[in-house]
């Protein structure tokens, strides 16, 4: 049984790719952020290094964004 097909399915998939990435990134950054606050309270000079770690999970969202873009490209084609 086919639930979704055609451009509608692609659009839903593109949306899910970004939404899933955003939720995953937010989840990871919530944990990292609270830990970073703990470290910063004692070692504020480490701020820059910690911001780099904060950027690590953004890859999940960025890959989701890329996937959604490819899907939208396919949809337009």
């Amino acid at each position, binding site marked *: 049984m086919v639930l979704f097909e055609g451009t509608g399915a692609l659009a839903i998939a593109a949306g899910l790719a970004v939404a899933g990435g955003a939720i995953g990134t937010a989840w990871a950054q919530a944990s990292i952020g609270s830990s970073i606050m703990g470290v910063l309270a004692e070692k504020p000079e480490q701020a*820059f*290094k910690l911001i*780099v770690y904060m950027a*690590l999970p953004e*890859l999940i969202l*960025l*890959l989701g964004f890329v996937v959604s873009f*490819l899907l939208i*490209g396919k949809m337009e084609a």
Partner: protein
Amino acid sequence: MLKPVKMQKLRIMGLKNECPSLISLLHEVGVLHIKHVSSQELEKGSPLPNYDEVSTQLVRMRSIKNSLPAQDDSQIPPYEIHNPLKLASEISIDAELLEISSKKEQLRKKISALESDLLSLSKITSLPIDVSTLADSNLHFFFFEVDEKELAHFHRTLHSHAQKYSCTIAPAQNSPAQNQASKKAPHLIVLVATTNADLPSHVSSARMLNIPKFVGTPLQAYHRLSFELSTLKGELASLDGRLFELSSKYYPICTILEEALSIEADRCKVAMDFGNTNDLFFLEGWCPKSKFNALRDEISQKFSKKVFVQPLHDHEMPPTLLSNPSVAAPFQFLTEFLSTPNAHEFDPTLITLFTIPILYGLIVADAGYAIISMIFSLLLMRMSSKGNLLYEISRIWLYSSVFAFIFGVAFDEYMGFTHAHLLELLTGSHGSLYAPALSRIHDIQLLLLITIIIGAIHIGLGFFLGFLIELGHNKKHAVAKLCWLAAEIGGIFAVAGFMFGAFGPLAGPAGAALMLIGMLGIAVFEGPIYLFEVPSIASNIMSYLRIAAVGVGGLILAEVINELALPHADFSTPVGIFVFAFSLGFYMMLHFAMCALSMFEAFIHGARLNVVEFYGKFYKGDGFCFAPFSVKRTFTYPAQGENSPKRMKQENEL
């Protein structure tokens, strides 16, 4: 440049009585990183004998300086100080400063109390009555502030709660401005003389005023207190004047002595890192190899055979001193800030001088935002001081915005517009001046491919650097790095050949074979467990997709701002002009915010790709910075015999 400065470890030993002179010499020369000597055969070092006196005088000078009104430090000329302890002990204004300080404190308290009394009295100066003439031990006096409308109610309250009382009523002494501002009915001041001491607890329709005890009429008391206040303020001003006199005489010398004594204190403390016997002292440290001979000659010239310098050759890790051209200074700052390379490894500063700005430029890639970010960077540099983190990052932004501009022009992006669209908006003319090299939205697949190629080259460069670094230390690890490089290149060709049919029919099998050889090498030279790390090469390369994703995300947001907030010019009516000006401001503000966001994101992601993906292939970063025992002088010259300059002022002038 690509390697930290070579260091020479050395040991200095000499007679104990030469120790203070040697410390002074090393401090002025400032090329030796002193390490703590710990040995069971040697006594633990202790500070120089006059340390207690130096630190006591240093604290004294600091407290005297803080008690005096501050003066402009830039106006204080540098002096040559021979004996700071003697000079400091000759300054004997501590007792006078203490007395002035306590007198000022007492005066401030009195003035504060008087001002409060005056404020209270000022409300009842309209009452013409001398309270002292009504003095009676059975009578109590209360002052109330009553709203004129509430006066009748107030009287009824008095009737019901006081058997005997008398009232004196006068208008309240508020200024006309206060009355106008309050827009309330005029207030009255009522003096109630009664035998009932509990009266105020029954009065709810009026506010009781706390008036201090006074003699005579309120107005007379007010004038008397005003005179007293002005006398006290005069006394306070005269004390301040005396402080200014003392400051102009002693502040400069206290500042000079503070610096001279803190230099002395540093010299006294450093002896704690030495090792001692009964007659000798030992110290160890590192200096740049190029300066070792000069240092040894200077010591032997000054101390003859009383102090010896001996080069040491052991395997202890020296401190790291990076040396790069001044243009790379902010990137060197970043390298040291993230993790200092050890003294034997490769200094990646010069590579990041190009990679960070290029990655930043590829992410922002907007000529309009590049110009705004240049202005932002210059402003931030003016707002922060040199050597500060913000200053150095602003310099990186400034360099990187050049690449952002170049890529912006190449991709035809000007704050979310194409150049043709922008020309049409500004001049009304149609047509384009050039064809863009790439459209980041329409050629997204090509852009993704480019970012993957950039990632593959960047990571491959990391492996190759790792090979070069290990070649001098450990051949086995060097070969392993080559195997990683082979696995990466083989993997890329295998994926390109099998999945996309690129590079001909042989590319896939050849790539797979090369990858297998690489993996075999990794298993042999580094261990089979490292095979689990091989897929991380793919994820590291994929990580470079963020260049496209963050960049395209920024571009889409810029286009959305243009779509929704671009103001429409309507100069036919004043309202139209106002709406246009307001919406233009809002539109520009959105773009400034977007530019700031792009600057931050592009820098973080550009730096992250270098630190995590690139550095991970070759960089250890387990070094510690070279911190020479050196002196920084602003207000003092070194004493003669310690490299003193020709132009100097003499101590006796002070």
